[in-house]
């Protein structure tokens, strides 16, 4: 076991992992904005993937503004940045990006001795906040990618 499953360590891993996902799959820079206020998106697209095991449960949410989700989708699909991408394709790209983020976290958790399984991705569209369940720790990581903001929301409960 090379790491301890505690929220700060999870956040540190997820920060590195999001930067890697953006760089590798999108060729886009992303950098953590420390102590950032949560941006207000009029409309957002959120990918979510849950994870569950004997000693750990939770979920990862990836929040993108609707225009930025379109640009991210164009980048992953190899289209020009301003090309409109169909709703189903945007959903699929955001879901897959969330799946990569959570798959990485699952591997990190399993290597730390907290075995768990992950769900398939779900997509939520709208202007809303995700409620955390009681006893579940929640952390927001805000990233900057060019002029855009990306939020990774982590819910985790250690049993």
């Amino acid at each position, binding site marked *: 076991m090379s790491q301890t499953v505690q929220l700060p360590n999870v956040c540190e891993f997820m920060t590195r992992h999001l930067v890697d996902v953006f760089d590798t799959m999108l060729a886009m820079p992303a950098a953590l904005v420390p102590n950032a206020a949560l941006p207000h998106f009029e409309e957002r697209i959120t990918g979510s993937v849950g994870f569950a095991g004997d000693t750990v449960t939770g979920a990862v949410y990836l929040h993108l503004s609707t225009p930025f989700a379109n640009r991210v989708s164009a980048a*992953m699909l*190899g289209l020009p940045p301003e090309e409109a991408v169909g709703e189903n*394709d945007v959903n699929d790209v955001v879901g897959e990006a969330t799946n990569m983020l959570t*798959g990485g976290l699952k*591997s990190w*958790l399993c290597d730390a001795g907290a075995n768990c399984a*992950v769900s398939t991705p779900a997509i939520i569209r709208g202007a809303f906040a995700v409620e955390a369940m009681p006893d579940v720790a929640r952390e927001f990581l805000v990233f900057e990618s060019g002029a855009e903001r990306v939020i990774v929301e982590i819910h985790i409960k250690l049993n």
Partner: protein
Amino acid sequence: MATKILSVDDSRTIRMIVGRTFKPYDCQICEAGNGEEGLAAAAREKPDLIILDVTMPVMDGVTMLGKLKEDPALKTIPVIMLTAESGRENVLQIAKLGVRDYLVKPFKEEQLIEKAGRIVTLQKKPAA
């Protein structure tokens, strides 16, 4: 004759990336959206290589791989697992099932070409 590659992934995005990756090469790409469809496509198309996702609805990649290895007509088709999960347990589990290689998402297209090129012949298409 073109190298036939079957991409099995529930994400259309990943199937598109796989298709784009092999576009410069003389390859024919077939697609399936889950393990069940993947098994049917493998039996129908007899691909030279399968690029297989792990976490999928209906039938996951590990189950599909197990069924593939039980089928005398399909068991020799080489498989590269494409997974978002790189944990030791996960890697050991898929290694035991007889995959030729695996690639962890996120991945660069050249990594996929490098791994596929070790298993099948990838002939660059002549410049148009």
